[in-house]
């Protein structure tokens, strides 16, 4: 068994009277691909927002452990940028790229937390800063090659196709050197070919040593890709297990998969 890198205990999130997350427990191990599924409004994105520090959870603990150093951190109240610095990066369901910057620059932004130069470096450009900048460009470019966007490196991010924008979101998050990558519906709006490429990309990302926690509605993708699946409904975890176990779980079929799953099997 690989080491636990993310451990969530009793996570609860209230918005006024609405309970979006209800005492949720979840864990991710190094090198795993874990899926988080559930019907619309189940609280999946809210869960990501709590993990990444965009929301401050009402209750519960989130523990992040670096697989490299073994250092354990309690995320309570940490700023989003600090959490990213620790090694957990995300993409957004509603694409949030910097559309007035080039594709390459978007990825370079991801390198920000791994680089240091500030005002002095910017103005005087000592050797150190120049090397750092070139390193940022090179690494970013290599990540673009990995996700298949290097040909569009100098285009404005806003001009990319929908599928490419989703891949750029992934590239930007990868640039922060995360050991855990959170993907919020990465296949949304993609055609079957793009989805197949995406599955391939996520596998390669895992093989490069990043664990992946992904939210997805595309069941085929979830079943073929993930090692484990967590199912959320009305903010509560209703099931967890391997894709095979989830596929036959009565509660899940009732709450969520229902006819979808039956359709899937009949075709």
């Amino acid at each position, binding site marked *: 068994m690989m080491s636990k890198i993310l451990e969530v205990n009793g996570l609860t999130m209230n918005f006024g009277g609405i309970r979006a997350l209800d005492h949720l427990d979840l864990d991710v191990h190094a090198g795993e691909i874990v899926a988080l599924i559930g019907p619309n409004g189940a609280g999946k994105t809210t869960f990501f927002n709590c993990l990444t520090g965009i929301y401050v959870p009402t209750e519960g603990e989130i523990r992040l452990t670096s697989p490299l150093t073994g250092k354990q951190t309690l995320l309570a109240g940490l700023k989003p940028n600090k959490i990213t610095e620790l090694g957990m990066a995300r993409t957004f369901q509603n694409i949030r*790229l910097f559309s*007035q910057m*080039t594709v390459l620059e978007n990825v370079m*932004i991801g390198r*920000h937390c791994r*680089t240091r130069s500030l005002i002095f*470096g910017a103005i005087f*450009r000592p050797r150190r*800063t120049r090397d750092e900048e070139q390193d940022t460009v090179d690494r970013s470019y290599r990540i673009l090659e990995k996700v298949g966007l290097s040909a569009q490196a100098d285009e404005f991010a806003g001009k990319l196709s929908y599928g490419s924008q989703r891949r750029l979101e992934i590239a930007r998050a990868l640039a*922060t050197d995360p050991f855990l990558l959170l993907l919020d519906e990465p296949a949304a709006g993609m055609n079957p070919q793009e989805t197949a490429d995406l599955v391939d990309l996520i596998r390669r990302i895992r093989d490069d040593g990043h664990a992946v926690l992904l939210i997805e509605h595309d069941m085929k993708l979830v079943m073929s890709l993930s090692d484990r699946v967590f199912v959320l409904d009305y903010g509560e975890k209703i099931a967890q297990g391997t894709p095979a176990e989830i596929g036959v779980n009565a509660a899940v079929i009732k709450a969520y998969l229902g006819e979808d799953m039956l359709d899937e099997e009949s075709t």
Partner: protein
Amino acid sequence: MTMISRQDVKRSLLVSLWFVFLSFPIMVIQVNPVERTVVWRWSNMLTVAVASFLLSLLVRVWLFRQEKRLVQVQLSPSPQPSIFHDLLKQQKFRYPLVIAGSVIVLAFPLLFSSYQANIMTTALMYIVLGLGLNIVVGLAGLLDLGYVAFYAVGAYSYALLNLHFDLGFWAALPVGGLLAALFGVLLGFPVLRLRGDYLAIVTLGFGEIIRLILENWSAFSKGPSGISNIPRPGFFGVEMSLDQAMTFMYYLMLGLLAATIFVVNRLQDSRLGRAWVALREDETACQAMGIDKAGTKLIAFALGAFWAGLIGVIFAAKTTFVNPASFTFMESAIILSIVVLGGMGSITGVIFGALILILLPEYLRPLSEYRMLAFGAILVAMMIFKPEGFITGSRRVYRFQAQKNSPILKDDE
């Protein structure tokens, strides 16, 4: 495709002739009823002719660009570089343009009267102010309506330090800049969480507070009557006549402008500059990508304020007098207009914006009472026709190491 046809030039000439004709009685003929003489002010005629010609040409270029842009939008969705960029990119134009520009700029005080040089110095000051505010508004996207406060801090720090401690101009220059930067951070802290119109209102309030303090705290700032007899900048103790001092001021500003352009250009093109633009584009995403929002914003406020402080010191030295009336909201509005008009986030844009907004009213004196009206009209027109400003900031293209070593590789991809 040429930018301006001969037809356009002809039409603009006609317009300018009309203007000269219409303004002739007011602008050129001056009757002195006491001495019963008539003064013919031919130089005014020339100014009116040139200004109206340029203005008319500008409008034509504008309309032309508008058409061209519409066509381009239909043809291809790629961002279109501005005409100025087109012009500057072509080697054929670039060097002659740059050389001609620098010669005119360098020889300006020798070619024109000290009055003209003085106006030009003011324009240079506003360019630097615009470049400073451009960091805050154009790059980092923080709408700051109280920028004049930092300008005031700079001016008063020289005036007061000189009054009480006899501090000279050269020592006051960095002190004024740093004090203004400190105020930038002080303002930055409470407004870190604010965005857009909320931020605008709070910064506007901050600007007014500083002015009101200067107006009412007489024991500290000598109140509305201000502080006079502020020494002009010295130059190794050389005695200078007023004209020489003005000329020196011009070159001093020119040097400061050059340094500012250099620094701002480098800042734009750096890790910090990219973080500012990302912050402008999407705060949440920016933070989620590991950028410290608070720190990045504070640096933007501090650096923007720093230049306002420097120019404040220079302003105090240039006019040898400061009072709170020089630091009204109108100043903030002018500087902001420069940034918006020129094109947010673009250095060339700010230079054009400042030259147009500061020089046009100066040279079109009769219009100057309608300055506010003209401002409004220009800004509204700008919003309608060219919301991104004269010159849209273009993004830098970076070179991958492998590409640097073998240029062929890039073509292969």
